[in-house]
């Protein structure tokens, strides 16, 4: 573990993916604006070329440019983050400013960075087609997009989102975490409302913005209460203070507020009401980012707070959030699944399925809480098992949830994906695309041998492990009553899984059985980068399901660093 001072030269190299992101942001600010502007020195007639502004050059004025810059930046950042995990010389680094620990770059935070950067990279690659830089059809909507500045706006926001999310992943101080959260959130709010020419986009964006701001404000209030109680917002100071004074009312109330703030981000019930509107109003790659990376952001906040801070080394009693979390988890998963059953808009359906998946992860967190609070005696690998499973789930969600949204994105390019009947007849029009969508749906349902089954299985394995506890250690008869109530969360998860199969299967039935809608008989738009992205997601879904061992080990070793 090395300590590095903020903004020192070693900082920039340790902070490599974020450095690349910042450079990319700078490039996106500057390069598309380069032109033949000239600056006149005052009191003279000398004009010096000052390239910033004026009529732009052919190259820098091209509409493709911002997208390519952004994709290149994100890919480099993703590559650097991933490579650092396989590099033997990687050591955990703590970034300090004086006495305060700001950021910590270790396996756990790197893994989250990989997830975030991967998701935003895939979404931006898909946006190259979804928010196209070339006109393939002269509609007013598309002519709007064909503008270098509008393109630059989009990719600026995407890079900002990525940067904010990475900050959240690395944060060691709750306030730094909040800054990163807000940075990413604000960019996301604008991304959701990006298509200001459509009504759904604006409505979704405004709803998401208002609800999100309220949730953030509540979360910030909780943080301020924590600060009042502990005197600092450093994670380790908070953890230490909790272990001595954890039973007081003030921190528990603060925790409740923080739960609301992060619960919104994770789209847990009853804070999820803005999610369906936001997902259906945003364009599909952005909705995909919301469903995968944004959820991960909320998850890491919850993990830091609930597991790291509220982890009393003293016995039970201060884990009052445990019961609340378990109830929240079951309500969330059930609500999400039942609401999805009734949806007729595929994006809303996927939004509710996101809510359900958040419920599954919250159930896992409740199990961690049971172990952490001493309800169950057990070694550190209990926590590792569950957090590792949650990490794996977040990682593979990128593959199939984002993939599902990207398929919807392809349909949007053609004319809209807001009704289930938009998917009708896809089996005939584009069999490979329909098969990919079916694979994504089956992965979401948890059908083997796909990655979705693996991740659901690992979560259940974690839940059952905590539920079973150390029962075999004594050998001989075990009593069913000795099973911790966390085991019932696993049963609830499976029952919800069975319920969810209905609406995932319905997509398959519609695609393969129903005739296409009127006016949608032609083949789908070509869009090579969005198709490549979908293929990458399909391959990842299948591969990570069949031989996902290396990712499992990566996630588990990352989780180990927490305990």
């Amino acid at each position: 573990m090395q300590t590095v001072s903020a903004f020192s030269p070693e900082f920039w190299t340790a902070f490599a993916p974020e450095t690349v992101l910042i450079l990319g942001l700078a490039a996106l600010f500057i390069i598309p604006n380069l032109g033949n502007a000239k600056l006149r020195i005052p009191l003279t007639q000398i004009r010096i070329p000052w390239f910033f502004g004026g009529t732009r050059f052919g190259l820098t004025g091209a509409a493709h440019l911002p997208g390519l810059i952004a994709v290149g930046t994100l890919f480099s950042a993703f590559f650097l983050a991933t490579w650092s995990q396989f590099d033997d010389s990687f050591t955990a680094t703590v970034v300090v400013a004086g006495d305060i620990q700001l950021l910590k770059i270790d396996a756990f935070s790197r893994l989250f960075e990989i997830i975030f950067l991967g998701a935003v990279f895939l979404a931006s690659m898909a946006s190259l087609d979804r928010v196209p830089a070339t006109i393939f059809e002269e509609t007013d909507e598309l002519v709007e997009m064909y503008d270098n500045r509008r393109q630059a706006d989009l990719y600026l926001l995407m890079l900002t989102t990525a940067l904010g999310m990475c900050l959240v992943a690395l944060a060691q101080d709750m306030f730094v975490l909040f800054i990163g959260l807000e940075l990413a959130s604000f960019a996301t709010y604008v991304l959701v409302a990006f298509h200001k020419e459509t009504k759904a986009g604006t409505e979704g964006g405004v709803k998401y913005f208002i609800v999100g701001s309220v949730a953030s404000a509540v979360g910030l209030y909780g943080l301020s209460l924590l600060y009042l109680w502990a005197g600092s917002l450093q994670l380790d100071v908070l953890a230490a203070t909790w272990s001595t004074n954890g039973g007081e009312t003030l921190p528990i109330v603060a925790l409740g507020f923080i739960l609301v703030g992060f619960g919104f981000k994770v789209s847990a019930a009853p804070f999820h009401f803005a999610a369906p509107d936001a997902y259906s109003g945003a364009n599909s790659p952005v909705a995909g980012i919301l469903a995968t990376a944004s959820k991960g952001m909320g998850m890491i906040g919850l993990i830091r707070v609930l597991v790291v801070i509220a982890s009393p080394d003293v016995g039970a009693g201060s884990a009052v959030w445990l019961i609340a979390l378990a109830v929240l988890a079951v309500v969330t998963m059930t609500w999400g699944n039942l609401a999805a059953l009734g949806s007729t808009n595929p994006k809303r359906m996927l939004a509710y399925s996101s809510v359900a998946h958040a419920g599954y992860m919250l159930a896992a967190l409740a199990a961690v809480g049971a172990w952490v609070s001493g309800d169950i005696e057990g070694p550190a690998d209990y926590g590792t098992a569950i957090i590792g499973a949650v990490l794996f789930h977040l990682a593979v969600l990128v593959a199939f949830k984002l993939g599902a949204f990207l398929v919807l994105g392809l349909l949007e390019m053609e004319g809209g994906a807001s009704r289930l009947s938009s998917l009708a007849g896809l089996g005939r029009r584009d069999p490979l695309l329909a098969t990919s969508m079916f694979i994504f749906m089956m992965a979401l349902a948890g059908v083997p041998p796909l990655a979705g089954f693996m991740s659901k299985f690992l979560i259940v394995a974690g839940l059952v492990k905590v539920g079973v506890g150390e029962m075999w250690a004594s050998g001989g008869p075990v009593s069913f009553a000795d099973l911790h109530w966390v085991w019932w969360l696993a049963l609830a998860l499976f029952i919800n899984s069975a319920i969810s199969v209905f609406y995932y299967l319905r997509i398959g039935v519609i695609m393969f059985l129903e005739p296409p809608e009127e006016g949608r008989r032609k083949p789908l738009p070509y869009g090579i980068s969005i198709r490549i992205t979908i293929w990458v997601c399909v391959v990842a879904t299948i591969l990570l399901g069949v031989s996902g061992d290396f990712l499992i080990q990566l996630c588990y070793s990352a989780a180990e660093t927490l305990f």
Partner: protein
Amino acid sequence: MGSTANMDLKSKEFALIGFLALIIAALAAFFPNLGANAEGNVDWISIPLVGFPIITGVILLAFASQESRTGKKKIAAPIRLACLCFSLIPLGISTALFFDWLIAVDWSTLGYNEYMLDSQYLWMESIGVSWHVGMDGLSFPMVWLTTFLVPITMIMTWDEKDGATYHPLLLLMGGALIGVFVSLDLFMFYIFWELTLIPMFFLILKWGGSDRRYAAQKFFIYTFAASVIMLLGLVTLYFLQPEGSGPFHGTITGRTFDMTTLFANAAAYNLGENVFLGLEMQKILFVLLMIGFLVKLPAVPFHTWLPDAHVQAPTGGSMLLAGVMLKMGAYGMMRIPIAIFPDALVYYQDVIMAIGLISLVWGSIVCLGQTNLKKMIAYSSVSHMGIILLGIASMQPLGYAAALFMMFAHGIISPMLFAVCGAFKHHYRSMEIGDMRGMAKWSPFLSVYMMFAWMASLGLPLLAGFVAELMILLAYWPIYGWWILLPGAVLAITAAYYLWSMQRTIFEGGDEGQPPESLNGETPVDISVHENIGMIILAVFTVIFGIFPFIALGMMDDWTVALFEGVFNRGGI
């Protein structure tokens, strides 16, 4: 992503033939290379047995699904021929195994928890999953049955519409089914168990009857829901094992999914008066596991997915569904819960017997009320599966052997029944029993096969079904005495209904006969050549196993004896 629609037909055929040649060459190269073992054994044979149909099925499916409508019609012939050839390879392997041609396989030497062709490769290190395959007297007849039924199904339904995607799906289905039977690792078992749902879902969805949408979804969701409950039981069982047991235990969890390790642990613990995990936990886990298997079997009251699935499924789908998929439930029951939780089995013996009896009686009686031919056969399947449950609940070696043989015999007879129904539907466009009179006049071949299949199903001696039913009745007499009259009477009544429906359909109607209205006055034709071939082969094997049941019964008896020695007679029960 260009599609293959741009290639012309000739080059596509060349591509297919080249692909076939490549596969055969790879196999031929494989053979001598894997003599890594000093004894030159072929333990690895289970891997191509499973992997080959699946991989070729997926590749052919991907190839065919990209075609346009006309392209698919043109490519149907080479693809179905390729599928037939590819499905004959596993049949060849399993028959060779049976006749000791590849290696010397002696099933009688296997004790409890010992397997032939046992090979294990590490798959997922962190959670303790290995690719562990092996066969014993329980699974080998099922494997042979599957490899046998897939080509027969393909031949029977040679002319099915959209053959370019239909036949690869059958191949894929066969591969997944074989995978269920040979896997000796719980995780692998579950993966193949669920994998069989997807091809069957598509078969019903695309080639099914008028209500196929409902039936396909009901089938998938019902069996999936039951399977996840079973999975919960399996995961709980996994964590209730001691840490560090078994060769491939997980690096993170410390446990393994390996079935052989689990069985050995349970058997080691179950000596004398001890009860593995205690009776309470055994009962709960037993119930959890049995839910999954009972729904698959299907046992009343969880059988309601079956009539819909069967009636709406295409002929090929029904043949594989009834012939093999239902046996998956029985196989799973015999493999896992009974071996690990014998005390729970004793506790629930009467319950299982009751469920079996109710299935038998209910299935037969509801059968009496049907006018749709296929639905009638579906309910008769339910009642025959009830017989299997009776055998399991009997806790007698004879009962278990009877259950095993019923699985096997029903697996040969019911595809024939569904083949007859399918031919009926194909040529007469109706499946209502009341519609047709005097079929013997126009379709003598179909009439003969229908008589044969009906007789086999009701248990005529010298045909395979009789052996199984006789063994069950013999096994039941010592335990339940005069209660045996109930299933006996029901069997007799059902036989009467079969005979009546047969007589009406084939013989009545006077000299002119009475073709169904659905034909609109066309002259009915007899069945085609490929349907003939398929049904003759099934008929011949029904007779073979009826007259010489010991061909299969030998290894089933050995397995039953080993089971009783290893599990039941350990001094406790």
